[in-house]
């Protein structure tokens, strides 16, 4: 920390305290600041300051004061991102929105919730479910990630198969531009085509365009019941065909998760039930909806695959359901036993390309001599690819890096995308121009410039560094 920045830090902190911030909201000591320089990607930096506004007025004050000093601003939610979206990669201040956590309104008549960005997604779900309503997006981190983070990264989740991702539920937003002006986009109308759809633009913009201060979210009636089944298949192709068959037979699952052979082998000892040795792919299928429909669809599912599947287990109650989900929940710690480190990417491919990409990844794994473990969302083509390695071994580290490059190439060849739900952040920005043409990137950058001419809002994210 240079002397200049420590003077700046003190000056800023004093100014904020004078304008009504309480000490708890101004993190200005070096040790504490180190806690605002990381996320789930294990990068470690230290911002100049970390500020935790309580309301819009304070957010505006921060933007004004930061503007006077032309400081860079890094918005942050829970800091649980998987692509470094909130990492203060350059000198600048963190604006943590965790204290703006009011559920402002649950409008039951219009089925819309109005929330502040710091609301924990799981808590919103709990609050709306008490009124018989349902907010479907369910990223794995929902118990601790904020809705603001979900919106800016456009987080997905297992239920995306039936319901879509976070973005599909954002009806409107209020956000602050870096110059402190507020913009409003969207509204409570289901049909709304007045002007450019800035809501969709801000969704998934990774905090590079504006700081979101209020979110309107669409809600649905809560499904009456959920039925969970686990199906084991002898090959990925058979499993992929099964997924296809489900849709064709008018079965409408809310979730279809899959585990590949390596995942199955890793998690098998931790499971409260036995999986056949020949199981190459496991599907975890959930069907939700009215009692009667769920029952008939589940029966249909059983009938349809009773010959092809090696095993079908239906959960009869909540305990059994939880048991089946162990296959997915115990997976992350289980694969950690394969190698000390993992590089995990969350590529997505069109549904039909799943068997192809899995087989290509299998041969890539042999070629680079590192285990590649895949699991994820078979219903929407979003695959979590984990290259398992020991980063302390230089040869493995190089091969791991090479593998990631190849994985992205393969994905894009099959019409896929670099990221299904984690975002680009600063961990994948180097590969960004693999996916998009120069003209496309230039258009995106022009938009960025229109919102943030000085490149002060979350710089170093999405776009490759020149």
């Amino acid at each position, binding site marked *: 920390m240079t002397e200049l920045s420590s003077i700046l830090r003190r000056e800023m902190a004093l100014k904020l305290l004078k304008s009504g911030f309480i000490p708890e909201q101004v993190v200005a*000591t070096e040790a504490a600041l*180190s*806690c605002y320089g990381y996320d*789930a990607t294990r990068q470690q930096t230290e911002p100049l300051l970390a500020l*935790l506004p309580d309301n819009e007025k304070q957010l505006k004050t921060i933007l004004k004061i930061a503007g006077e000093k032309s400081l860079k601003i890094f918005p942050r939610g829970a800091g649980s991102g998987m692509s470094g979206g909130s990492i203060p990669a350059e000198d600048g201040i963190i604006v943590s929105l965790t204290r703006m956590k009011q559920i402002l309104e649950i409008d039951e008549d219009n089925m819309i919730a109005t929330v502040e960005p710091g609301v924990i997604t799981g808590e919103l779900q709990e609050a709306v479910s008490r009124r018989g309503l349902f907010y479907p997006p369910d990223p794995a981190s929902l118990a*601790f990630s904020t809705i603001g983070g979900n919106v800016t990264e456009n987080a997905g989740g297992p239920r995306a198969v039936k319901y879509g991702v976070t973005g599909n539920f954002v009806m409107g937003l209020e956000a602050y531009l870096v110059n402190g002006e507020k913009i409003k986009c969207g509204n409570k109308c289901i049909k709304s085509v007045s002007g450019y759809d800035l809501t969709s633009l801000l969704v998934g913009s990774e905090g590079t365009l504006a700081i979101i201060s209020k979110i309107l979210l669409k809600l649905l009636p809560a499904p009456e019941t959920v039925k969970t089944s686990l199906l084991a298949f002898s090959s990925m192709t058979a499993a992929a065909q099964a997924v296809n068959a489900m849709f064709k037979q008018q079965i409408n699952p809310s979730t279809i998760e899959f585990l590949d052979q390596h995942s199955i082998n890793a998690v098998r000892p931790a499971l409260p039930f036995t999986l056949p040795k020949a199981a190459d792919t496991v599907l975890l299928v959930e069907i939700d909806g009215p009692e009667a429909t769920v029952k008939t669809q589940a029966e249909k599912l059983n009938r349809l695959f009773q010959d092809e599947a090696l095993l079908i287990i239906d959960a009869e109650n909540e305990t059994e359901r939880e048991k089946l989900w162990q296959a997915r929940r115990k997976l992350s*710690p289980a694969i950690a036993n394969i190698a000390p480190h993992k590089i995990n990417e969350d590529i997505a491919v069109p549904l039909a390309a799943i068997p192809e990409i899995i087989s290509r990844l299998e041969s890539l794994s042999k070629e680079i001599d590192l285990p590649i473990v895949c699991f994820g969302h078979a219903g929407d083509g979003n695959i979590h690819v984990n290259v398992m390695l020991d980063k302390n071994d230089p040869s493995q580290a190089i091969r791991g890096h090479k593998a990631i490059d190849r994985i992205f190439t393969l994905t894009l060849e099959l019409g896929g995308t670099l990221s299904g739900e984690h975002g680009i952040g600063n961990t994948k920005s180097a590969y960004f121009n693999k996916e998009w043409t120069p003209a496309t990137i230039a258009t995106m950058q022009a938009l960025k410039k229109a919102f943030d001419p000085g490149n002060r809002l979350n710089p170093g994210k999405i776009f490759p560094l020149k």
Partner: protein
Amino acid sequence: MREQSPQPNRAFSARTQGHFRWAQISTLIRTFSCFFKPKITCKVLTHKIDIMTQSELAQELKKCVKCGACMAVCPIYRQTGREEMVARGKLNLIEIISRNQELPDAWIEAVDNCLLCCSCEENCSKGVKITEIIAAARIRQTAAQGLNPLKKGAFALLKNRILSIARFIKLGSLLQWLLWRRLPRHSGLIRRLPLPGTDEKTVIPILPRRNLDDILKKRKPDPDLPPVLFFPGCATRYLQPQMGLDLIYVLEKLGFNAVVPAEFKCCGMVTWGAGDAVSNLKLKASNLKVFAANAAIKTVVTGCASCGHALKEYDNLPPESEILDISEFLFRHREKLEKLLKGRQSRKKITYHDPCHLRKGQGITKEPRWLLKLIAGENFVEMSHPERCCGAGGTFGLTHKELSRKILKEKTDAADATGAEIVTSGCPGCILQLTEGAVVADSKWLTKHPLSLLAGLLRSRN
């Protein structure tokens, strides 16, 4: 939960009996020296309390991948929203401040702001031993700054034979009425005049004239019944002896003779939490002597969640001896108990709060619920999030009153929402905190240990 130490130091247990003091001093010198002399890598203490060596600590810290799952359950983070206050932030601070560095305020505040409720540990997919790390950090802090004088005084009472906690409380029981008055509905005291560190809603326990040991002096146990060792714990012993009598009564009804050695000292939990390794070690060694002297009795029961949690972590317990929470013990003898109750049930609506040291510390959730269903049948209702900490956290409620009250408020709201008349919990600390919660929120429900309800039913004639 915590793994057993791979190589328990046998030499130590021998030493504890003979030349305890010397062994202890030399161990402690090694303990604290590990903070200052990086080269020492010995396994510092032989007990489980005990702090990890530097290399163990470093390895444990490395396990955290900063996924953030601790944020979902940490009661402190829930209230503050501050990253330094959640496990991953605390571990980050503990990791970056090296051994030789002075402790920055943020470090001290973060380490201080922990209830040791184990919620993060229960929710950690990497199995990081977070509470042990925090305890180690507190030992470091105590070594650097010394212990808070109030705690120092209190811990001295726990250890000292002459100026003992028992005598201190007896004195207090005479003087308490000068400054405190009885609560109208609940069991507890509330201040008469402004006292430092309290407000008009602070509830303290009534200090009884006669503690459990005094009362038990006149007891004539039936020596023919199979014996069970009963570890009452300080709260039961000195503050709520009735709880201890209830437990002894229930054991007798089930056909067991409760053996209650007066030599038992504090389980050590409170000193462990305060980073006072010296006191912790002394208390444990005293207790281990008592356990060794009663080694013939294999079953040890306690009605206190924290004591049970602490005792289960003891190394060098006599072989085959087994520590059980009273709910576990009763569950094992459920058939007999069901017969004894003859279908008698409480007609009051009852709910239950999971003590952290029972649920997260010992993994016990099923047995207390079985017991309450036995006691109240359909009248037992779950509150929302029974697993959330009540904010007591040993002395946390006293040292961080405002934050503790905020945490407590959510708990009392959840209890209110059930419409229950009695809120139960298997931990004297939680019970006291919940009582304060009821006073603060002006709620109608009473707080009880499930065991007291059971004893009440067994005593009732029907």
